[in-house]
């Protein structure tokens, strides 16, 4: 038999690897946010499990408090990220960053959401 802490710590390490892979390979911005969250919870698991390896009692309360703080901050960061993705999609009609575009990527969608967006898009070009 293996201690729970060891198993979930290893699981956390695997999640970090998995999340990193998804974060690099997926171009869709919302998918990147999901991968970012998977990396985050992997780090929390790894961290919490290293605070639970001695069978004294339960997981180290200081680690628990830090993880709770981390989960809340991760949600705040994700909410801001979603806001950025939506604002980006509203301006460009895209869900990828321009440098991620390949040949298959379609140009800006024909009917832009409203007039002010067109001015925003045009402005940099002059």
């Amino acid at each position: 038999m293996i201690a729970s802490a060891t198993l979930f710590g290893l699981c956390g390490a695997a999640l970090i690897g998995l999340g990193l892979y998804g974060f690099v390979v997926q171009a869709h911005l919302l998918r990147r946010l999901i991968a970012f969250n998977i990396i985050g919870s992997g780090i929390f698991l790894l961290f919490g499990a290293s605070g639970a390896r001695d069978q004294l009692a339960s997981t180290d309360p200081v680690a628990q408090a830090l993880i709770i703080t981390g989960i809340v901050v991760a949600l705040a960061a994700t909410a801001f990220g979603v806001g950025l993705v939506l604002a980006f999609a509203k301006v460009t009609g895209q869900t990828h960053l321009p440098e991620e575009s390949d040949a298959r990527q379609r140009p800006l969608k024909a009917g832009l959401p409203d007039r002010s967006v067109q001015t925003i898009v045009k402005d940099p070009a002059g």
Partner: protein
Amino acid sequence: MSGLAATGFDLMLCALILGAALAAIAVRDLFGAVVFFIVYGVFVALAWLRLEAIDVALTEAALGAGLTGVLMIGAVSRLERLTSRDQDQDAAGPQSPPTSSAARIATMVGAAGIGGGLAWGFITLPPSAGLQLAVAENLAASGVENPVTAVLLNFRGWDTLLESIVLLAALIALWSLARDQDWGRRPGLRQHARPGGVMATFGRLLPPFGFLLGVYLVWTGSAQPGGAFQGGTVLAAVWLLVMMAGLKAAPRVSSTRLRWALIAGPLLFIGVGLAGAVAGTFLGLPTAYAKPLILTIEAGLTLSIAATLALLVLGAPMAGDGLGPDQPDKEPAR
């Protein structure tokens, strides 16, 4: 649970967590990926239960799976409206990333290397008692019986104070994404719940229970698992439900009452901290008054956390998207 059965359960849970994470990353349909991500959050909460970190399990289930799930589902539905249909289809597929297969393999190797390195570091970590004993020894002086609450609001009060300010900063950053002409609108998802429909009934039925549960979680947090973050999240969910059911409109971002609710917790926290500074140390709580002080701070924090989290999920006020039920479906004239 006895040894072998427990290990078997843990192994199965690890497999489910990794499988759900893989699906959340790789599944073709974007909405499906979000659903798998929510499922993943619930599994991770179970893992925290197995590690006997019940406070973390509650937080992960409520925030990591619950609120993040609402946020993501809302984002998918808004993205569908903001981008053209065919482009969305293109974007949803795994073939859309421009990475070549060589780059993919290199990424895979790199990610596996990092994961493997972390695993190796974890295995070879020298055993240490951590801070459990230090917390246990000083628990009596903290005023509460739940060691996690003692750390959050007494021993490491600084962290929690700054965290509540980080939440506020995130909300300000999110709101700053709104365009000038949208400022002062109501944030949030469009609601079309039918007035007498199932959703409206649900929105009337559940809030009393949810409110009770939220307050209970805060109250019981001083002795048992629970606390301001878990309780505040439940209250945020209740508020979101009421708004989704079309019973109450989201507040305007310029509302003064809303602003007070947002800063009540941090202000109260700083106030108690300053009072402590007068008596000796900033944020130092005298043992005799520690429990009532902690409960006061938690009450304020719960209000602010609930309001901030709900507004973070609703997003920036946006024309044609963030319309409350009482607003006309058109842009204001410029």
